């Protein structure tokens, strides 16, 4: 199918939509991209395109949410036809699939995240009002990670990003999410649909498709979303400069004090009294620990006295 065709939006391939729409917004990428050490050029091979661990988790969470709600999963990705085999995997798992034609989806940080998110949001809206959009929280194509938040902005949806756990309330369209906080704490969020969530690959692995489903989806054409005339690229939000030699920042160093002889003595410590090394072993663990503590104590490294920890 030709990319970017005008006209009515094609129906995503896969089962007919029923119930709430859960969108897995994926970023298939060559997970073993080569970086030229001299020029910084990144070379990707589309045949190696696959889901990253967090994108796999996003798809798995989407499938679980749709199962709980009795809904439909739409696997959505932006890029060239080379990533269709990855979307076929999603079809084999029971999702519908749609690809947004996007030529610079793998330009790393230089990608126009605003325009990309607008195109993805438009494709989602064409497929129907989403109850939940799940993204991976890391961009394997070296994006800046702003797309999930921008999609939420375009859809007017709530957002909860960087989640380690995501479950849905079967009786209501509420997402229960868990997110890491500093100091080992976690916060639990109740997010009302429609919502955009991004997930870590924490404790979730994408299920394997049955053979029959993999066979049916193999080579199946993936529909391409109609091009969005209203989505205009405003250029990248980050400007990427060319490669250049590493130049460490200048560090202020105090000027040398005293004459050359004194500085040499200070540097080498030849006239400073010090304890010669001594051999204290072999010792048992208790004796060795005692020796170490005595040494630290003798050199002023004793821990401050206080209540036992």
């Amino acid at each position, binding site marked *: 199918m030709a990319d970017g065709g005008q006209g009515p939006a094609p129906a995503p391939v896969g089962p007919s939509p029923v119930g709430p729409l859960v969108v897995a917004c994926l970023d298939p990428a060559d997970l073993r991209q080569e970086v030229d050490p001299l020029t910084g050029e990144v070379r990707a*091979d589309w*045949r*190696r395109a696959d889901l990253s661990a967090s994108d796999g988790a996003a798809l798995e969470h989407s499938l679980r949410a749709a199962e709980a709600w009795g809904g439909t999963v739409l696997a959505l990705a932006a890029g060239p036809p080379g990533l269709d*085999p990855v979307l076929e995997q999603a079809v084999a798992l029971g999702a519908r699939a749609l690809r947004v034609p996007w030529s610079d989806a793998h330009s790393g940080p230089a990608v126009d995240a605003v325009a990309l998110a607008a195109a993805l949001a438009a494709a989602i809206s064409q497929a129907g009002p989403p109850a939940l959009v799940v993204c991976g929280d890391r961009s394997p194509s070296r994006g800046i990670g702003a797309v999930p938040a921008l999609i939420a902005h375009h859809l007017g949806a709530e957002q909860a990003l960087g989640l380690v756990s995501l479950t849905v309330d079967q009786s209501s369209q509420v997402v229960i999410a868990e997110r890491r906080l500093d100091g080992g704490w976690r916060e639990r969020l109740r997010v009302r649909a429609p919502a955009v969530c991004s997930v870590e690959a924490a404790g979730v692995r994408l299920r*394997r498709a049955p*053979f029959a489903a993999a*066979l*049916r989806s*193999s*080579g199946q054409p993936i529909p391409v979303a109609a091009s969005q005339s209203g989505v205009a690229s405003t250029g990248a939000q980050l400007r990427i400069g060319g490669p250049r030699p590493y130049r460490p920042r200048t560090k202020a160093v105090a000027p040398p004090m005293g004459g050359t002889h004194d500085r040499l003595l200070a540097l080498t410590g030849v006239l400073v009294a010090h304890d010669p090394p001594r051999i204290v072993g072999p010792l048992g663990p208790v004796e060795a620990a005692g020796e170490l503590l005595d040494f630290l104590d003798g050199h002023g490294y004793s821990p401050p006295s206080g209540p036992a920890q």
Partner: protein
Amino acid sequence: MADTPSPDSFDAIVVGAGPAGSAAALALARAGRSVVIIERGPFPGSKNVYGGVVYARVLDDVIPNWWEQVPVQRWVVRRSTMVMTGSQAVTVDVRTQAWGRPPYNGMTVYRADFDSWLADQAVAAGASLVTSTVATGLVRDGTGRVTGVRTDRPGGDLASRVVIACDGVNSFLAKEAGLLPKADAAHHTLGVKEVLALPAEVIEDRFGLAPGEGLDIEMIGCTRGIPGGGFLYTNRDTVNVGVVVSLTGLAASGVRPEELIADLKEHPAVAPWLRGAAVKEYGAHLIPEGGYDAMPALAADGFLVAGDAAGMTLAAGLWLEGVNFAIGAGLAAGRAAAAAIAQGDVTAAGLAGYRKALEANFVLQDHKRLRGAPQLVLSDRMQRQYVQLICDLAEQVFTVTNPEPKPGLVKLLLRGARRHKVRVRDLVRDGIETAKVFR
């Protein structure tokens, strides 16, 4: 294909989307049979390691003008054989521009490209391809006949009338079918290679090539006396350098294979070609080089084996070929399976047409004729003494020692033989043996 058949209705299952598997599936699909290829990698060729030349004339009848669409790196117009010691090298260089024109002779390819292309031909003919799927075992009926394969996917037991195992060297399926005995290290070699990046124009300058032309060098004497040899092939903007060594010899030597590649890259005859090259990739793979006498039975009830799984790599010194033998065997297996299915007899007897077809074409004829070559080429005298003898002889022939007059060639040969403890009796016997093997 108009309708995807349900998994239990396949005429044939081909395990492995390498050259043998795709060729087998192509032949079956062309015969109107439903066939599925199961590939463990994410795409055909993604798991294959290879550093050689593909001789694809075997495709002439199957894919007309294949050279117009094949993803070639370079067409090989130079074929060199280099005999070397640590500081010497004697090279026989064959160059012909006829190899650079259709229908061509040999080409360098990236297996990821070539295998994907060949699998695409099978899929275009009607075969189905399922990737990222491992065939974990065979399914049999009460009589022991193979009736399908078990895969690592949920609901992954598939039934078919014939299973063709093209799952590569050390084939687990062929072992499970009872065709392949326990792996014998003496019948296998280890190939290790580096892919080194150089600009295309540098490759062309250094190796005397025009754009699109390629070079293939086979070397002997560069493996610290471990039976085996070295190779160097040019791709478009990379060079493959590596060695193939006897497994038992390598284990006995205690040498690590990467040391052998490092030696080769530092050899004075090789180092200037590789100056400034950057390592892109390192790979290693087992090669079944046992030849005709180490090949397993090729058919069982409902089961065929082809390609590396059947030990069909030809390692005969002058000729080092594998992919063409795999394609030839795969085509024969696919055709034999289609004929057996049509006749309703997929027992080993019904599938016997496979072996007959191989015996009638180059696959088994070449292997049978050159059955003594692996032992001859890997013998200690050939690997050590004759290498030194040839290099010393060439050096002395072209060393001018005036005012001494030029010595006679026979005198030099006998002097060299004495120095390297080569007995004339052995020399004559090996000469006769070589003549017999390569007659």
